[in-house]
Structure formats: structure tokens, C-alpha cells
């Protein structure tokens, strides 16, 4: 789950990371009021969960409150990469001398978090990593021990940070690690961390991605979820504990298990079709969940055929069959449906479906070929 810049920075601040004075606003008049309170120059920043806000004109400098109000009006009317801007952050403008990058993420291969820093902050850090990898300093953090003071000093020295800033850098690095650990984040990033003309370090921008699997420990963070970045059907799916991702094709898929769901998509493509979605009903799904999955798939107007591929393990074929029948009763689909049931209670499931208006398949390849033909308007009966 991604957090907005203002949410991320407020969390960082709780752990001792200095951030600019500022507040978030939903209207131009609020933005103007905040600018008035701050006095001096301010930055008006769109709060949307995509990169490239600056290039899209979503981050602007204002010299006075009136200008801040005008810019807020403009920015609040924008869409950036398809996402509407609903809030702006109005921050005191920093006098930037230098921009640094500082971030933490999980290193899968090393099986521990890694703190990364670069003296080349503010620009696309992935580009720096690609072009000049020697400019990125990496330090692995032992998940049992945490970030040690000397590690922060090593990073400061590694990015040639002037010595007078080492102490405050150490506080920021430790704070970022605490924020990361205590929030169960997968990413916590300050880009840029700036050295101001006054000689202070300050987190001018912030970004956090939280581990969805750990949100049960952080109900206050879970409430911060921004539903704008998700498709309505993806939100609906999460309500039922289904894993659903909408794609551009025309063959709807309902599968149990993530690996098998991906494979079903791949096999559809192999035989010349285009999957309309990824959908994993999970292990042990009952009839109600199956019916919900069905409604979600069919809510996509591009659908020309549906392929149901269930390999029973914990999931039972008869339960799935009951769900399909219940959903067909309710939704009355007008597209061909191809069903393949194998594994636990598959025989019982097939018997339940014997009289339904469905196309059955024996193998996955067979099912995919039938679905592709059906989507292209072929007659299969």
C-alpha cells in the first residue's frame, strides 16, 4: 500500500526526521490560508500516488499567498497520469544548497533491508543506479540488530557529506530506519534530503510503501489507503479476499492459486487469446466467494468468454460448482463459459454442472483453446 508524500513525511517526522513546515489542503482557499500562516515563499505540491509530478506541472513555487491559491486551483483541477489531484501539500520553500538521496527497501536476494544513499539526489535514482552505480552507497541492515550508528556514519562518509552534517544525518538515518521498521514498510524514501542554505538537513520529499500483509498490526495506517489508484472492481475484490487485477484482453479468468492463475493467462496468450484479468480465488474458497469473483469478472464489458480453471486441493470442486451455478442464476451471463475442474471433489462438481450451459474441458491446453475460439465467436457446442 502506497502512502502520499504528506502522510509519509508526517510519519518520518514522528521518528525525528526534520521536514518543512506545511499542511495539506483540499481547496484553494485552504491552500492560500496555509501559505499566509507560513509566510514567505511556499511550494504547492499535488498529492497523487505516481511519479513524475514535477514534470507534469504538479509541483509549483508560489511567492505569496494569492499565488499559492491560484496555483492550488490549477493543480487541484489536474489529472496526473490518469489520477485526479484531490489534495495539495503547501510547504515552506527550502533554500536548497544540495540534494541527497536516502532510502530503505528490502533486498530479496540478501534477505534483509538495505539502506541506500547517493550524493546525486533529486533526480531519477534508478538512472543514477544504472549510469553511475558507484555513486550509490548501500548498507545492509541486520533485521535482528537494526541500523547501527557506525553504518550511518559510513554512509555519510561514502556520499562525501561534509563532516559538520554527520551528526544530524545519523539522526535522520536512524529515524528513517525506525519509521521503516515500526510501520512494516517495503520502501521508505527521502528524495531529496536537502542541505539548506542555513546549513540544516531537511526531508523535502517523502515516499512510503507499506507491506499489505502487516497492516493488521497498523490499523491507523491501513485507514490511509487511497482508493483512487485502484480500479473499482479491484476494491470490490479485496472486500471478498480475492486477488484481482484488471487487464486489457477479452477472456475472463477465474483460477485458484496465484501461480496457476498466471499460468492460465500465459496459456491463453500462447493459443492466441488475450486474458482480461488475473483472478485468484485463493485456497478453500466457498460458493459465496466464487459467486463474487464471477460478478467481478463479468462487470468488465470487454469480456467475450470466461475460462474457469480450478485444481482442487483445499478448494473443493463441488463448492466451486455451486458458486458458479448461484452466480449464473444471478448474473445471467451472455458470454460462453469454459470450465475445467480437476482434483478434490472434481467429479461431484462436474455432476452439479452437467446440466448448466457451459463448455467443459479436460486439460488446461484444451480449455485455453476453447476459450480463445469462443472469444473469437467460434461455435464449440
Amino acid at each position, binding site marked *: 500500500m502506497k502512502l502520499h508524500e504528506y502522510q509519509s513525511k508526517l510519519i518520518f517526522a514522528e521518528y525525528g526526521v526534520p521536514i518543512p513546515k506545511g499542511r495539506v489542503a483540499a481547496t484553494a482557499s485552504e491552500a492560500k490560508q496555509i501559505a499566509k500562516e507560513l509566510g514567505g515563499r511556499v511550494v504547492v505540491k499535488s498529492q497523487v500516488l505516481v511519479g513524475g509530478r514535477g514534470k507534469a506541472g504538479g509541483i509549483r513555487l508560489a511567492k505569496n499567498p494569492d499565488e499559492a491559491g491560484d496555483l492550488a486551483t490549477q493543480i487541484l483541477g489536474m489529472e496526473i497520469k490518469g489520477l485526479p489531484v484531490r489534495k495539495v501539500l503547501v510547504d515552506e520553500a527550502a533554500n536548497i544548497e544540495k540534494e541527497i538521496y536516502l532510502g530503505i527497501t*528490502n533486498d*530479496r*536476494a540478501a*534477505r*534483509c*533491508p538495505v539502506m541506500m544513499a547517493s550524493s546525486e539526489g533529486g533526480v531519477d535514482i*534508478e538512472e543514477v543506479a544504472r549510469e553511475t552505480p558507484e555513486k550509490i552507497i548501500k548498507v545492509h541492515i*541486520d*533485521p*535482528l540488530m537494526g541500523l547501527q550508528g557506525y553504518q550511518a556514519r559510513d554512509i555519510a562518509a561514502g556520499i562525501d557529506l561534509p563532516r559538520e552534517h554527520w551528526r544530524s544525518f545519523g539522526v535522520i538515518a536512524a529515524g528513517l530506519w525506525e519509521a521503516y*521498521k515500526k510501520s*512494516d514498510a*517495503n520502501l521508505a524514501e527521502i528524495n531529496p534530503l536537502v542541505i539548506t542554505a542555513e546549513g540544516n538537513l531537511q526531508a523535502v520529499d517523502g515516499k512510503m510503501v507499506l*507491506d499489505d*500483509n*502487516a497492516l*493488521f*498490526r497498523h490499523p491507523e495506517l491501513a485507514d490511509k489507503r487511497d482508493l483512487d489508484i485502484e480500479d473499482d472492481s479491484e476494491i470490490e475484490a479485496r472486500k471478498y479476499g480475492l*486477488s484481482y*487485477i484488471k*487487464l486489457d484482453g477479452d477472456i475472463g479468468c477465474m*483460477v*485458484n*492459486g*496465484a*501461480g*496457476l*492463475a*498466471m*499460468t492460465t*493467462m*500465459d*496459456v*491463453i*496468450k*500462447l493459443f492466441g487469446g488475450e*486474458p482480461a484479468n*488475473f483472478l*485468484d480465488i485463493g*485456497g*478453500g474458497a466457498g460458493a459465496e466467494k466464487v459467486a463474487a469473483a464471477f460478478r467481478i469478472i463479468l462487470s468488465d464489458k470487454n469480456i467475450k468468454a470466461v475460462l474457469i480453471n480450478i*485444481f*482442487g*486441493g*483445499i478448494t473443493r470442486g463441488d463448492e466451486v460448482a455451486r458458486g458458479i451455478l448461484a452466480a449464473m442464476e444471478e448474473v445471467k451471463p451472455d458470454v460462453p463459459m469454459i470450465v475445467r475442474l*480437476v*482434483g*478434490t471433489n472434481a467429479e461431484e462438481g462436474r455432476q452439479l454442472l452437467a446440466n448448466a450451459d457451459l463448455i467443459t474441458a479436460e*486439460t*488446461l*491446453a484444451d480449455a*485455453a483453446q476453447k476459450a480463445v475460439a469462443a472469444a473469437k465467436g467460434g461455435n464449440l457446442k
Partner: protein
Amino acid sequence: MSILVDKNTKLIGQGITGREGLFHAQRMLEYGTNLVAGVTPGKGGEWILDGKVPVFDSVKLAKEATGATASVIFVPSRFAADAIFEAADAGIRLIVCIAEGIPVLDMMRVRNYLDQKDVRLVGPNCPGLLTPGEAQVGIIPGNIAITGDVGVVSRSGTLTYEVLYALKEKNMGVSTCVGIGGDPVNGTNFIDCLRLFELDPKTKKIVLIGEIGGTDEEQAAEFIRNNVTKPVVGFIAGQTAPPGKRMGHAGAIVQGGTGLAVDKIKALEDAGVRVAKHPEEIPELF
């Protein structure tokens, strides 16, 4: 012969008095698995599964009473890390964790702790182990595989069943099937299993089932090139998955140009692995 588990492996089940755990414990017993005890704090002294299996309050007590060396964990994800630590500290040597959705920082702590001990973890977010005809540890339906000489290692669950079933349809049996799980940080990996299969005299061929995300398949390919003499057939799920979208498994995501199926397939093919276009093609490639 087999790897990791056989009919003599003394197994306990943590969390097998719950609904899911009990269902699968029953199936493990029916399969012939040597399930000697269950562990549920607060239920010590009870007997479950028609009085066949005693329940203990802790792994330590269960191990002392039965001499168990392996544990299968059915507790929900939020309690799973604790259950793994408990098993490891009680001296269990093989831990199989089924739970899906363990926070990744929990798994990093688990993994870093276990690396300091002589303990093998399989999973989490995995279907477990199956040595056909001997032992079923986890949730793999026993009847979809027959005894034979193919070693199977997989990051997936139901996709593994699909492959076992495809092998059985062609009358090809399995020595041991290991589901290593779909999480970004797990215990036993491809290379561990490849090493064991290479050493196992009963295993003559190997199937490796990977998916998008991470670089485990690339590392496995490198290991195969240098260390594996037995024929390997592979399959990679997620060839059509769009970047930046997590495909169900916490580990199955293409990020920043890494983790792509096409790179994994190329790495495997360069190492001499025949990669199937779909799961049902796997038996034909040996």
C-alpha cells in the same frame, strides 16, 4: 530414497486443532504420514483424530514425548513467525510452514535467525512436501502423484498440482515434490533442492517450476550449469504479467526491469534446461 521426508520422519503439527489444520492432519494420517503429535497452546492433554494423535501445549513438550524431528505449521500468518521460532528453539530440524501472508520483515528476522542454526525451513506460503507412497507433509493432495524418479521443486501451489497431475497422466512418478513457496523471503530455495535431488540416487530427472519476481531462477540456472548432471525441465509462470502489478504471491512482481519471465527462461535455457511452453508439455520434454 527421497529427499527431506520419508515414511519414518516423525512429524508434529503446530495448529492442527484448528479447522484447516485438522482437515489436513486427517489427510496426512490417511496418506500414511508418521504424524506423532499436535501442538496447540492450552489444549495439551487432548487427543484428536479419533484418539490417534496426542496434543501438547508446546513444541518442546511434544518433541520430548515423541522424538519428533519435523514440524508442519498450520497457524495463521500473524502467528507464524512465533511458531517457527518455537520449533527451531525446541530442536526441530525440518520446519514446513504453510501460511500465506507473513509480513516480510517477520520473515527476514526468521531467516536471519535460522541461518545461525542447523534448521531447514520449507515455505512459507507453500503447499509443503510430498514423497509419494511415504509421506505427505502439508496440503498437496496425495492422490495426484505416483512414486517414481522425477524430483519436483516449485515456487507455486496449485500450479505444482497441475504439473504432478500432468506427470501422472503420462505415468511418470515422483521421488519427492517440494513446494518452496511464493514469498520474497523464504527458507529452502531452488538451489538447496537441486543439490539434494542431484545427490538422491532415486531422483533421475528434475522439474523446476518458477514464476516472475526476484532472481532465484537465474541463480538456479547458474547452479544447474555448474553442478547438476541430471536432466532438468523448467516452467516459468507469469509470462504475460504486466510490470508493477503484484500477481497474488507477495514475491510475484516484476519491478525495475528485473524478475521478468523472459530473462528467467533465457537463463534456464542457456544452462541447458528445456523450458515448457505450458505445464502439460513438461512430461514430453524428458
